[in-house]
């Protein structure tokens, strides 16, 4: 039927709307993503020291990601649901593989070397986990009962703890959140939410004593008072706040940011790229970016609520919500209201696996947006 649609479109070309419909593409989301990518490349050009090499590679990632998105968009939602357990299993295997064969830098093993490219399995887990939990919960009671919540938590904690072992606390938290958000959207009882909140608070001293490494503790201390160590770990956050603050309302102008151009800003093309944007485009730029993000999220939530299956709803809803969490964690950490963890700014920060993961997620969203009416019998 899809192929027939496609053939019909080719025979009778009738506007972008029809082509996109036949290709399972959500046009609004596509335009918004295109705008985000363009903005991101412009900022990256400046952040990378006006060197085109970063832009070229990022553009390659985006092109590949775009293609992946189109491919994933063609997969039927039922297949996604059916293959969720296998995909999740592969994800877990790759996380184990990282711990054993992984390569990395600065005392953390995060990458799998595939020969032609390096893969960060933890990033991929950001879509594998919501896929799994959505598939699991959609077949069961909504809202989930105690038993299902427990199993879900187990499925969430296994990859989370594997990622903590790497160690990559930032990604671990985001992966945990991506799974937890499915539970939340599935109608997790208020008692559970309150309970998990209490557990989280109780976990803080345990984490501090047994889980967190010294450098991670240092980052949290640095958040509390960056001025204690202006040349050491406080440097990053002081420099990023200076970049953001000195940008003012209108910004210093594209490629004119002194903090980023003179290398005072660390990691300016990856995790701290929002500081470059804020310095050069000012508060206007920040507001524009937030608007774009909210539109993407809004559109995703519309897709989620319009989804035909419970699985589609949960997956789309969690992908939209986790996208917001990425944004909040990154922008919060760079502006000094959250501790510094490794969390890129979606669609803007330089980084291959993150871009690919995001596009795969949007591919799933598009697949869900064109999900055919369920033929399920109702009574």
């Amino acid at each position: 039927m899809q192929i027939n649609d496609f053939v019909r479109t080719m025979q009778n070309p009738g506007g972008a709307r029809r082509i996109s419909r036949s290709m399972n593409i959500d046009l609004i989301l596509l335009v918004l993503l295109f705008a985000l990518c363009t903005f991101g490349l412009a900022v990256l050009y400046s952040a990378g020291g006006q060197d085109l090499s970063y832009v070229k590679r990022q553009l390659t990632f985006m092109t590949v990601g775009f293609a992946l998105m189109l491919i994933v968009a063609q997969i039927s939602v039922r297949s996604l649901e059916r293959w969720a357990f296998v995909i999740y299993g592969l994800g877990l295997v790759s996380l184990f593989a990282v711990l054993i064969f992984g390569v990395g830098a600065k005392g953390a093993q995060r990458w799998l070397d595939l020969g032609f490219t390096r893969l960060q399995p933890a990033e991929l887990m950001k879509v594998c986990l919501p896929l799994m939990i959505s598939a699991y919960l959609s077949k069961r009671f909504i809202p989930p009962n105690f038993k299902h919540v427990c199993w879900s938590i187990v499925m969430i904690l296994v990859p989370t703890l594997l990622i903590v072992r790497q160690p990559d606390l930032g990604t671990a938290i985001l992966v945990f959140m991506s799974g937890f958000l499915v539970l939340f959207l599935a109608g997790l009882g208020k008692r559970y939410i309150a309970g998990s909140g209490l557990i989280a608070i109780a976990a803080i001293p345990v984490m501090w004593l047994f889980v967190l490494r010294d450098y991670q503790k240092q980052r949290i201390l640095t958040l509390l008072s960056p001025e204690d160590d202006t040349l050491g770990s406080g440097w990053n956050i002081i420099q990023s706040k200076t970049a953001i603050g000195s940008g003012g309302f209108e910004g210093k102008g594209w490629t004119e940011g002194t903090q980023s151009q003179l290398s005072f800003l660390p990691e300016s093309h990856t995790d701290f790229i929002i500081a470059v944007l804020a310095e050069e485009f000012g508060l206007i730029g920040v507001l524009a970016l937030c608007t774009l993000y909210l539109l993407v999220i809004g559109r995703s939530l519309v897709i989620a609520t319009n989804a035909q299956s419970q699985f589609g709803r949960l997956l789309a809803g969690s992908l939209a919500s986790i996208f917001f969490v990425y944004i909040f964690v990154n922008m919060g950490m760079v502006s000094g209201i959250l501790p510094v963890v490794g969390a890129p700014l979606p669609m803007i920060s330089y980084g291959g696996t993150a871009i690919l993961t995001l596009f795969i997620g949007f591919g799933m969203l598009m697949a869900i947006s064109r999900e055919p009416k369920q033929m399920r019998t109702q009574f």
Partner: protein
Amino acid sequence: MNEEAFSDPARERQIFVGRVLLASLLMLAFTAILIARYFDLQINQHQDFVTQSDNNRVHMRPNPPARGVIYDRNGEMLADNQSVSNLTIIRERSNDLEKLIENIGTLVPLSESDVTRFYKRLKRRRPFEQTPIKFNLSEEEQAILAVNEHRLDGVKVSARLSRFYPKRDLFAHVVGYVGRINEREISLIDPIQYSGTDSIGKVGLEKFYENSLLGSVGSEHVETNARGRVMRVLNKVDPDSGSDLVLHVDSNLQQIAFDAFAGERGALVAMDVKTGGVLAMVSAPSYDANLFVSGISQKNYSELLNSADNPMFNRAIQGQYPPGSTVKPLFGLIALDNKTVSPSTRIEDPGFFFMEGIERPWRDHNSERGGHGKGVDLAKAIIESCDVFFYKMGIKTGINILSSNSSAFGLGAKTGIDLPGEATGIMPSRTWKKESRNASWFNGDTINMSIGQGFMLSTPLQLAVMTARIASKGKIIEPRLVKSVGGIDLVPAKTKQIKEIDPKYWDYIHDSMKGVVHSVRGTATSINRGLTYTMAGKTGTAQVVSISADEDYDKSKLNKRQWDHALFIAFAPFDDPQIAVGLIVENGEHGSSTAAPIARSVIDAYLQTNSKISSIPNDALKGLNVYANQ
């Protein structure tokens, strides 16, 4: 699977939509928090962060001035600035400092003190500042470092100006040297003027004229990146170089004087009688001033410090010696002026002098036993250096007159020369003895003083000043080393006259001093052979150990360090004095045999090149004419 059978899609969707709405509200709330945060940073705290951002990138870099160069009167360079290469480390750019220093040590020699001093400097540096670890790299060392640069992160060879003294030890006591600014000096100097400068004048002219030589610091505002690399210069204020100094000193004359000491310890000061300009100032032995410029090694320093010859001691202005008989012309003049003796006063000298109530006689040191005999007048007493005449004259004139009149000739007070650390010497008086020894003045003290012994002490510079004032017949000549600063001549204050003294007394004293050199019985007659001009002088001998009256001075019984000091003062040419000299040879025994020849060679050299009176023999001129006529 059977659970699915009970599901209610409508209710499921309702629950989901409810949760999406809740999530949307939460997202909007969190977005508001983010925007509030960015608004706070970018609008409320904007100005603070602009300042902070500018502080990050804009740095004031001092542009140190070149230190003034020091020349002698003929334009010969005595202190110069040379570009030297120092090895520096930027701490922030090296990951493992200890390993880096170890690596450097395998390439160029690094002493332990280099490393400890480096760590000390490291504590005071600013971020990304180059901290020196080794100074004055040789060309070979620079080449080795350049080849290995790639494996030495944060290491830089930087060029800067460093002081160099081309005459090495010849002017160490005059010019002095610069050295690294120490902790004590840091609290005294203007930190702005010295930013970018790490040395300061420590002794000599370098210290005395520090403010003129330093110049004034310039600055540049530069934009730097986070690694401290300068991206561009925003604005620039050029430094004003320090003023050059031109000295009265003639380095040829200085060399001749220095060589004339030929290994003896001592000091000499030669002055221009017309201007007070110091023509030569020697303190022997000396040391190489360059040793101190970039920090002297402990070994070299203790060698200098522990040497029995004390080479770092500037004898010319700090050495205080009994002037001995060199004060006789001055005391004679004072006595004539105060009418306590007259040109016709004659005494008999039996070779000793008894004073009432004191058993021990005062010996006449300058005669064989038996004394100078009958009919000794003041002239003879000066020419032959008769002590007994001066004993009697001293008692008659009295301490008060001798003391108060001597000060005007430069004794017992700093001469005010443009050098730091000058000693005052001692011109004893009743009050001086009361204050310093809490004792009354005795006639015996006057007797000792009247031949320049006892309590009396003077520096070689004071002797030269005294001689110049006698030579100029009472003009208050003030000694100066520096002739001009930054091209502007230092015009000496108009010279005043000491006091009105009868010209015939001046002539009498001058003639007596001429007799010392030129008459048959003069004590310095040995140096007049071949003189083409007339010289006036006076020998002196200063006791190092006191010899009791009934004992003879027998040098064979004494260690050389206990031999008498030999002194000599002189001026020339007699009719129109141009140069005055005062000098001492430590343990040189007799002014006539060791000190006087040094004075002669200095005066010879000076008059040959500078005298307006031609000393070229007529024969030579004739030869020239013949040549010209051909």
